[in-house]
């Protein structure tokens, strides 16, 4: 974050232009958090008000409310300003409940684990 004076706030990478706006924050572990930017600092530490985590599995999604969140800057990948005029998600996606999405996440995780273990087994057999 650059040291921006009041006059060059619009030309710098300062997050000040995002204050009180609805943001999408992508984290290093792949999580997507949405919320209003309350405050930030030079390390990109961020405080989100009314934060919720958007879990997406295939065509299903769910917003899990989290409340007030403080995010350590080193985990931040990207901070995107959501355009309120546009649709946040493609129309073919359906909203489901938290339990449903957790079940779908678990199924997806098991499928990738299975793929991984099958691959390991094939590698052991050392096919050319």
């Amino acid at each position: 974050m650059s040291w921006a004076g009041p006059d060059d706030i619009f030309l710098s990478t300062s997050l000040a232009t995002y204050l009180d706006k609805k943001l999408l924050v992508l984290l290093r572990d792949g999580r997507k958090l949405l919320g209003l930017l309350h405050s930030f600092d030079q390390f990109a530490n961020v405080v989100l008000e009314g934060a919720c985590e958007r879990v997406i599995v295939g065509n299903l999604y769910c917003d899990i409310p989290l409340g007030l969140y403080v995010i350590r800057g080193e985990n931040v990948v990207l901070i995107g300003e959501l355009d309120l005029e546009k649709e946040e998600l493609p129309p073919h996606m359906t909203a489901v409940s938290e339990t449903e999405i957790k079940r779908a996440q678990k199924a997806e995780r098991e499928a990738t684990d299975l793929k991984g273990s099958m691959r390991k087994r094939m590698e052991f057999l050392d096919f050319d």
Partner: protein
Amino acid sequence: MKIKLTSASYSVRSIKFSFCSNLLAKPRKPSLFLGRGIEIILFFSYFKDLVGREVTVELKNDLAIRGTLHSVDQYLNIKLENTRVVDQDKYPHMLSVRNCFIRGSVVRYVQLPPDGVDIELLHDATRREARGG
């Protein structure tokens, strides 16, 4: 901090301290060199010249974002405008994001327009840095 001695005899009781006005000014800009040498400046200056050009930033998590370079800072954090994700179907959550701030530490590549690169200028600058460093 300035020390003003008011009396000609320089007696201790008449020493007046006047604090420098710097303390009331805006925060001092941190050193741009970050203790890692002068090489950091080269890319910062280079990206500053590319502001307004269309670039594609590829992140370490494989997300690639195309947009107009709005600004860059000493940490090589990047702000993009008019963004679109390269593989939109894979990242549905990014559909309505038009401006974003990207932390410098997560950038893998910045893909530049071919005419945005003045090779000779870059070579000269690099040679200068190598000599000075």
